[in-house]
């Protein structure tokens, strides 16, 4: 394990990339222009007018307070999970299990509400959010225990537990948490008293606001506390961290639990704020969007806020474009992916 100093190349960082920070505004501008151009060509090829399509997209994202609210609701889970991942990646711990952690957060929130003994009100909401954070954190904890205890690479441990989580949700929805006779795998509707409050006029639930606040707190932890310093050192050089007397397992546990709890909260707020019930597959694909958000935010927890907003608004606009112009839905996915690829290509650098 410990090579002597002079045996050639050593791994400097556990992450194989860095971010280019020079002229970043121009880079992103250029990337956006290129993705618009590619999208225009694809839309032309599918026989639609790109200008009309783009207009529909803009209107879909920003056209009315309601549309903005829709986009902000989409942003919420991505921001929760993405800000947590940014911290994880900073420590050089690659958590690919947000999908499962979000799903488990949903389970926690749903179970807390269904089994809440008292009146469905603010207290129940808070308990449900706490349960969501705990379940998400526990799920990340299972992965961490496997990773550290059995030396399984964290990517494998977290990734594979996603499938277990999804099946667990199905199992619970066909049993203890399910709504009998619904025909779908879903829980009963939650009482109104536990729904997250919504912001009037725009009509989005307060999840995105909580997420932004937590992202700011995580950023503070990263830059202003000894723990954050330890995380930054560990992410840059595990050897320097060991030399500095910082415990690598301790750091891994902390960032995994924090990012798991954040993902769990993302799932919980999605249930309490948007669906008002647990639905099978409600979080499908969220985890990977969260990875993109963490990268768009250059692993800077506070910068994941604009990153998540970008993804949220892009998705809301693309969906509107699909509805109004009739662009095929697969093409919408392609355009979303191309845009993210261009932006990442403009900012991420191999080390």
């Amino acid at each position: 394990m410990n090579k002597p100093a002079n045996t050639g190349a050593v791994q400097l960082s556990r992450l194989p990339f860095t971010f280019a920070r020079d002229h970043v505004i121009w880079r992103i501008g250029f990337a956006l222009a290129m993705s618009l151009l590619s999208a225009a060509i694809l839309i032309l090829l599918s026989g639609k007018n790109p200008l009309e399509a783009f207009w529909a997209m803009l209107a879909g994202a920003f056209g009315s307070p309601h549309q903005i609210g829709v986009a902000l609701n989409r942003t919420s889970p991505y921001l929760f999970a993405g800000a947590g991942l940014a911290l994880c990646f900073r420590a050089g711990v690659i958590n690919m299990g947000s999908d499962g952690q979000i799903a488990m957060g949903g389970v926690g929130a749903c179970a807390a509400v269904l089994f809440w003994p008292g009146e469905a009100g603010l207290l129940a909401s808070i308990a449900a959010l706490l349960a969501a954070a705990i379940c998400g954190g526990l799920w990340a904890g299972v992965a961490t225990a496997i990773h550290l205890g059995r030396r399984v690479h964290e990517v494998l441990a977290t990734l594979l537990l996603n499938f277990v989580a999804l099946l667990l949700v199905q199992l619970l929805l066909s049993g203890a948490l399910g709504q009998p006779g619904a025909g779908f795998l879903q829980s009963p509707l939650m009482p109104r008293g536990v729904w997250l409050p919504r912001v009037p006029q725009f009509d989005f639930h307060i999840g995105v606001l909580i997420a932004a606040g937590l992202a700011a707190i995580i950023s503070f932890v990263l830059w202003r506390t000894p723990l954050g310093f330890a995380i930054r050192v560990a992410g840059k050089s595990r050897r320097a961290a060991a030399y500095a007397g910082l415990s690598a397992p301790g750091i891994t546990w902390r960032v995994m639990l924090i990012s798991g709890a954040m993902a769990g909260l993302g799932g919980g707020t999605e249930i309490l704020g948007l669906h008002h019930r647990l639905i099978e597959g409600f979080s499908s694909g969220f985890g990977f969007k969260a990875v993109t958000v963490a990268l768009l935010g250059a692993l800077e927890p506070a910068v994941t806020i604009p990153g998540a907003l970008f993804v949220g608004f892009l998705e809301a606009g693309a969906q509107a474009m699909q509805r109004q112009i009739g662009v095929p839905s697969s093409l919408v996915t392609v355009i979303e992916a191309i845009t993210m690829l261009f932006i990442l290509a403009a900012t991420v650098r191999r080390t």
Partner: protein
Amino acid sequence: MAALLEMRGMVKTYGSLRANDGVDLDVFAGEIVGLLGENGSGKSTLMKLLFGMTEPDAGGIVFKGRELSGHRPREAMAAGIVMIHQHFMLVEAMTVLENIMLGWEEAGKLLRRGTIADRIREASERLGLDLDPDVRVADLPLGRRQRIEILKAVLRDADLLILDEPTSNLAPSEINELLNILRRLRSEGKGIVFITHKMPEVIEVCDRVVVLRAGKVAGKAGIAGADKASLAAMMVGRDVTAPLSVEPKAAGAVRLDIRALKAQDLGPLDLRLRGGEILGIAGVDGNGQLELAETLAGLRPVESGAITLDGAEITHATAARRTEAGLAYMPADRSTTALVKSMTIAENLMLRDSHRQPFSKGGLLDREATRKEARSLMERFDIRAPSEQTLAGSLSGGNQQKIVIARELARQPAVLVAHQPTWGLDPGATRFVLERMIALRDAGSAVIYISSELEEVLAVGDRIAVLAGGRIAGLVSRAEVDMTRIGLWMSERAA
């Protein structure tokens, strides 16, 4: 005879810094020119100008009778100039043959694998490189890898080879072999520029020496008649080879007690250090030096035995607890262990103490106090950098090591373990490190000074131990040093 390479009046300024200030350099075919200079004296800038990696403000380059100007690195290489870097540009998973073919355009077009393999064998035989074309680079020791780079240059008919610090990663026997290879290249009519700050090698192999200081040629000398002291004085502008003043101190109480210590590839060994003494540990690299240093620092598990520091047992204590107990450690691996190069000087100074005063207060990092502390440490330990926010990786090796010294010594440790603390440093910085070790000793601490540079160990050690095969082969006080016995101990292997 016209020179192979003529560089005339090279000037390059970066802002207010005159990195090259009218430098001349001639290299003839069939000679080895030593290019000496401290870090920051302008050696790298001169080579960048030669390769066209940056534009000169003034001056001209003539190579093989042709003017080279406004050129790019590719063109310099095509003209027949090859640079062999300190860090090799090799693909470890590929064979020697594949690495040599990599990026060699003619090889792909005109030659077959078999032909190239034959040429490799032929050249390897001729120059004594001992390289098999079909061996994977990953399976070769560092010295052998370097020869692949030399072979690349030879097969591509380079006329001028520039070697940047070629011996800094090599074991003593490998250094000798490299010097022999260079002599053979010289006899084949190649021009060689040997960049280094190791004096003995220069004297052994070079025909002429050019010394740079502060961007100017401080001196040129034929090797006949040059000696270490005069070359070093030319480099630094002052005499740094004068003997260090190491009046033995009356040793104090026992500060570090190592009993029957055993770990993987180490021991069992016993050592006892008193306050006010430096124990120099000599030995050929790879004989347990890293194991001893890391075991003492708490980075490797102890199998049996006991370590006691100032009366407190720390045999199985964590690295953090040892730091608390008063143990400081300067690892040999400066770039990924002792420092985080992509962090600032201030962050590196707080690396091992981030949760303590003055770096933290009330559980939060105290940025203002950290900055103040960093500036004061930079002042006290003469760390030269634009500001405390400068990235550690952008500093010279000497200044990087000063960060480590500042951090470890600021804690006023009971015991310091220093492993190869002068590795890769120029004479000025080496002197600084040695003087700090002695000052620490004089203040009553105990120092374990581990180095494969025997001369340094003898210069600072109050007692000298020799590590061979992970065990102490012998231990003497400085007054009783007998070079033959030390040589014998060094060649001893654990049975």
